[in-house]
C-alpha cells in the first residue's frame, strides 16, 4: 500500500472506501496497466461519501455558531439589566430599607451606644447597601475592586477629616451586580452612615454629578469633612464617572 500511496488521491486511501477489496478481487491487476480502470471503480464509490460528509458538518457548525452569536449578544445587551430585578424584589419583598434606615438613626446616637469591634463599613439605605470597606495599595486595585468597596489610599479617612473617597464597581460583565450598581438611586439629602475604627459617622448627600474620568479633582483633599463616592456610568459603555458627595452631618 505504501509504495502506491503517491499514485492515489487522498480519498483512495480513505479506510471507508474498500480499495483493498477491489485490488484483491482482481489479482491479475497491477497499478500500472489497470490503474485507470481501478480509479474509475473507486471514484464511483467515493464521490457520494465525499459530498455528503462535509455538507452535514458545515451546516451543523453554522447552527452552533449562530446559537453562540445569539447567546453572546443577548448577554451583552441584557446582563446590565439583571440586577434591576433583584433590587425591585428586595425593595418590595423585604424590610431591608427600613432596617438600614434604623441603623443610620442608631449611628446618630451618642458615641457610647455605637457597636464595637465592627469592621469599617458603609450603609446607604436608599440603595439597600451595607458593605465592608476594603483597604489596600493602588497596585492591587483590580483585586480589591473585584471584592467590594475600596477606600482610596491616597485620600483621607473619616477620623482625620478631609475628603474620604470610596470607589466601587457599578457593573462588569464578569460580575453584573457591582457594589455601587444602584448608586444612581441615591438622592440629594439622603443619609449615609459610615463606621470607621468602631466610630460612627453620618453624612448627608450634598451633590450628585457625572464627570469625565479625567476629572481627578474629585479625589483632592478638602478642608471640610466629606465623603466622596464614585463609580462608572453609564452601564453599557462606562465612559464617565457618577460622583456622590456627602457632607458630614454629625461626628
Amino acid at each position, binding site marked *: 500500500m505504501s509504495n502506491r500511496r503517491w499514485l492515489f488521491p487522498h480519498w483512495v486511501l480513505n479506510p471507508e472506501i474498500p480499495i483493498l477489496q477491489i485490488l484483491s478481487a482482481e489479482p491479475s491487476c497491477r497499478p500500472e496497466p489497470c490503474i485507470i480502470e481501478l480509479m474509475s471503480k473507486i471514484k464511483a464509490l467515493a464521490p457520494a461519501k465525499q459530498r455528503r460528509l462535509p*455538507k452535514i458538518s458545515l451546516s451543523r457548525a453554522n447552527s452552533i*455558531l449562530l446559537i453562540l452569536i445569539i447567546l*453572546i449578544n443577548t448577554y451583552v445587551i441584557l446582563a446590565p439589566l439583571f440586577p434591576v430585578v433583584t433590587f425591585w424584589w428586595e425593595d418590595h419583598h423585604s424590610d431591608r430599607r427600613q432596617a438600614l434606615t434604623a441603623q443610620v438613626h442608631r449611628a446618630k446616637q451618642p458615641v457610647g451606644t455605637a457597636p464595637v469591634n465592627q469592621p469599617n463599613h458603609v450603609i446607604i439605605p436608599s440603595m439597600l447597601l451595607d458593605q465592608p470597606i476594603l483597604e489596600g495599595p493602588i497596585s492591587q486595585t483590580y483585586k480589591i475592586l473585584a471584592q467590594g468597596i475600596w477606600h482610596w489610599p491616597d485620600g483621607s479617612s473619616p477620623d482625620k477629616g478631609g475628603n474620604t473617597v470610596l470607589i466601587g464597581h457599578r457593573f*462588569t460583565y464578569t460580575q453584573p451586580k457591582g457594589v455601587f450598581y444602584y448608586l444612581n438611586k441615591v438622592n440629594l439629602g439622603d443619609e449615609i452612615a459610615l463606621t470607621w475604627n468602631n466610630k460612627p459617622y453620618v453624612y448627608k448627600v450634598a451633590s450628585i454629578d457625572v464627570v469625565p474620568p479625567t476629572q*481627578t479633582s474629585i479625589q483632592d483633599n478638602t478642608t471640610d469633612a466629606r465623603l466622596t463616592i464614585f463609580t462608572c456610568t453609564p452601564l*453599557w459603555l462606562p465612559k464617565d464617572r457618577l460622583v456622590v458627595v456627602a457632607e458630614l452631618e454629625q461626628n
Partner: protein
Amino acid sequence: MSEKKKFWILLGLLLLSIILLIYLNHSSQQLLLSR
C-alpha cells in the same frame, strides 16, 4: 449562499461578538481616574 460562505461569515460575527464582550468588560473595569 453556500454553506462554506455562511460558515466564514458566522465565524467572523462570532469573533466580533467576543471582541465586543471583552472590550466592554475591560472598559467597565477601568474605574480609576487619570488625567
